[in-house]
């Protein structure tokens, strides 16, 4: 592929991405219709659930672990958030736990 062809493909990917971000704002410029305002207020909770599944869509990183590192680190994250109600603590705790698990107990090659 020539550099120009690569640039065209990247340009179209940029256009598509920007469309997904601009469409709601272009469609509802003046006033937000009540049903859209309703969706805007209730969607976030559903989006968080959707993104959690999205993050875990590929299952586990570590073959043969049955997803144990993911399950344990998720439990730590959820537990810390339920207990301390502090996002930074939950995120740092869950991530450090996961790093320790995959580096020490469930080693992945490379």
């Amino acid at each position, binding site marked *: 592929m020539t550099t120009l062809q690569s640039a065209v493909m990247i340009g179209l990917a940029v256009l598509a991405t920007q469309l997904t971000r601009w469409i709601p704002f272009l469609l509802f410029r003046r006033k937000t219709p009540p049903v859209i305002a309703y969706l805007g207020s209730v969607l976030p909770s559903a989006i968080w659930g959707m993104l959690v599944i*999205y993050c875990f869509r590929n299952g586990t990183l570590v073959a043969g672990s049955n997803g144990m590192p993911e399950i344990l680190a998720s439990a730590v994250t959820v537990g810390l958030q339920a207990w301390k109600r502090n996002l930074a603590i939950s995120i740092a705790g869950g991530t450090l736990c996961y790093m320790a698990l995959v580096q020490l107990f469930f080693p992945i090659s490379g």
Partner: protein
Amino acid sequence: MTDHPVATSAKAAFRSTLPILVGFGFCGFSYGLYMHSLGFEPVFPILMALTIFAGSLEFIMASMITGAFAPLTAFVVGLVVNARHLFYGIAMLDRYRDTGALKPYLIYGLIDETFSILGMGRVPAGADRRWYYFFVTLFNEAYWVLSTAVGAMFGEDMPFDTRGIEFVMPALFLAIFVSSWQQERQHVGSLGGLGITLGCLLAFGTSHFLLAAMVFIVLLLLLFRKKLSTMTGEKA
């Protein structure tokens, strides 16, 4: 002397985006390194990080531009992979309405991680709402582009063991999910989003589940409109 509201907003935005700095530090770095391994000059991943500015699509495009010229595929894949951004726009419609000259930039940069911070609807005390939105968007973009550049240029000689640090993104969304759960009076949306997406993943597989899930989530929320409108009666 008290701080200027713009400076206060910038500081607050930096604190809020710290987890993103860690996550992007890793993801952008891996993306730059990946592009380097495919044989691209650093300018390619850096420009792609700036213009596409959507992590998963950048990885997909990296492999696509090493293959055959397929402009229509690039466009359709871009739409499908990033269709979830439509939801972020709908959720931020009213909050971005009065942002004036900052608005085009805020819309351009409305990525998952920026929405994850601004979608919660909390603006730190003392910060100006509009400048806070701006700095969160700007910092996230800066983390992404800079870490991509570092990965593309110096990725091969990093000394420390970072395996597992990518869990920071799932951890971020999990923690936000729980935090949102703790604040709501009913859990129709949370459970619906989780259950429907999981069901669609099992039914349609990893490459098609997200669009199906989005359709079913909207249908579910519309079905419960009467009930949820009276129960919440406020902005989520």
